[in-house]
């Protein structure tokens, strides 16, 4: 082989190694994002397990808040639907449904403030405390997931990542955004301080 042949061959090897390294990096980042998504699901599971207990405690006192409780039950069922982790659209839908539960849950606790008996109930206080704890863990899981998604999406969207991702079928993943309703809710110091 002549010298220019060696040169082209060498360049091709370098390009192939770089492409593979980029591809391996993307796969690693996708796996990390999926792992972080599982972390969110673990925390969501805790939140969902808590909801029936809260509704059971609140149901005895909050006769006039039936609509609120029904809405929460529906949102919980929707968020608990099985989804495809490999499909970004399905993940986005799942995360949006999960995010919608938080303002409904906060509404229930806010409404409970109007019922003195419920407000002073030990069970309700314990549920509120557990909810705050779960929300703390969920916020941490959300930050972890968003950090991994940011890293994955950057590697996919920056050239030549977009070409490699298209060939390998790796897609950008959605961020887990706080629901608009939750962001607009009035801030209560008690929600943030244990």
């Amino acid at each position, binding site marked *: 082989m002549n010298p220019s042949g060696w040169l082209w061959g060498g360049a091709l090897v370098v390009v192939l190694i770089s492409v593979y390294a980029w591809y391996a990096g993307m796969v690693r980042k996708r796996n990390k994002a999926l792992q*972080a998504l599982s*972390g969110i699901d673990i925390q969501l599971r805790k939140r969902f397990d808590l909801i029936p207990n809260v509704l059971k405690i609140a149901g005895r006192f909050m006769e006039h808040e039936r609509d609120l409780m029904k809405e929460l039950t529906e949102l919980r069922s929707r968020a608990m639907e099985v989804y495809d982790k490999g499909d970004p659209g399905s993940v986005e839908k799942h995360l949006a449904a999960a995010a919608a539960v938080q303002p409904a849950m906060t509404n229930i606790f806010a409404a409970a403030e109007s019922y003195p008996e419920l407000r002073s109930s030990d069970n309700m206080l314990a549920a509120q405390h557990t909810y*705050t704890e779960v*929300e*703390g*863990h969920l*916020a*941490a*899981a959300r*930050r*972890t997931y968003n*950090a991994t998604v940011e890293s994955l999406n950057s590697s996919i969207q920056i050239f030549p990542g977009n070409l490699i991702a298209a060939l390998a079928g790796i897609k950008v993943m959605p961020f887990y955004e706080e629901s608009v309703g939750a962001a607009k809710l009035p801030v209560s110091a008690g*929600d*943030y*301080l*244990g």
Partner: protein
Amino acid sequence: MSVHEQLEIDRSRPELAGFDDYYANRISPRLAALASEQRKARTWAAWISSIGLVVTAVLIWSLRRHYHVGKWFEPGDDGRPGWAFWVTAAFVASWLGTAIWKLMELKSSVKGSLLKEVSAFFGFEYEQRPGSHNLGEFSAARLVPSYDRARTEDRFSGCHAGVDFELFECFLSAETGSDEDRGSKQVYHGLLFSFSFPKAFSGQTVVLKDQGRMLNFLKGWKHSGERIKLEDPRFEKHFEVWGTDPIEARYLLTPTFMERVVELAEAFGSSKLELCFRNKRLLISVPVVRNQFEGGGMLTDVRSKKRVEIIVREFTRLFDIVNTLKLNIRTVV
């Protein structure tokens, strides 16, 4: 206490409310009692030193006069003084050493009394020589470098603003050189704090001082877990985080808590503040240059209010950590 004798302490601090009265009623009388011991010790040390010098001088004079021992003092071929010179030097040193030992003994006693009294005001317990059994957690968390010899002193423990704590001063040294050129150098001197933390956690999260890419890498690989990049750019500029569980690390290091850690690091200036969440405790290492909680030397008057002012200032570091990090409040965001 007259206006002129007032302590120079930060009276805006709620922790120091009533300290002036406590100083006047408890500490000042105790220091006055110690002052008479100081006078006696200083006189005794001065006498011992003088007698030592006079005895040595008379001994040399008479030996030289009657036994002509001058040549034993003269330098040999190698230019070093004769053996009699060294015997005399050792003799003088032993007298002076005895005097210094007496003063050091008093210094230790004064320091112990003073720290005990000031600790009692804050409701803390004090141990002058605590041993190194408390060092294990900090060593396991790698907040202190590896060492061959450890010395700890001035351990305080108790509860401040509902937060259990332990604090002690630590000196670590490591052996250097080979068999023939063996030595020892100090590798760490600092204050080590251990606090109860209001959140439950099971893994380990270490917050290290950012020291540039290369040093971070060299220091970081020793820590268990992975490097966790956090969202706060100010925090990331000061620190880098290693942890066994990234979700737990973010649960502990909330955006608000990160702001507080940065605030604390900036308040402590250039000192290399480092933290670790481990075994349900928050461990903090603050390297220092000057020996802490010493209470001054024995050549100045033991009643000097400066001694108390310095100790009180040294205690405020503890209060600053608890208050700035708000360790008594469980932050969710």
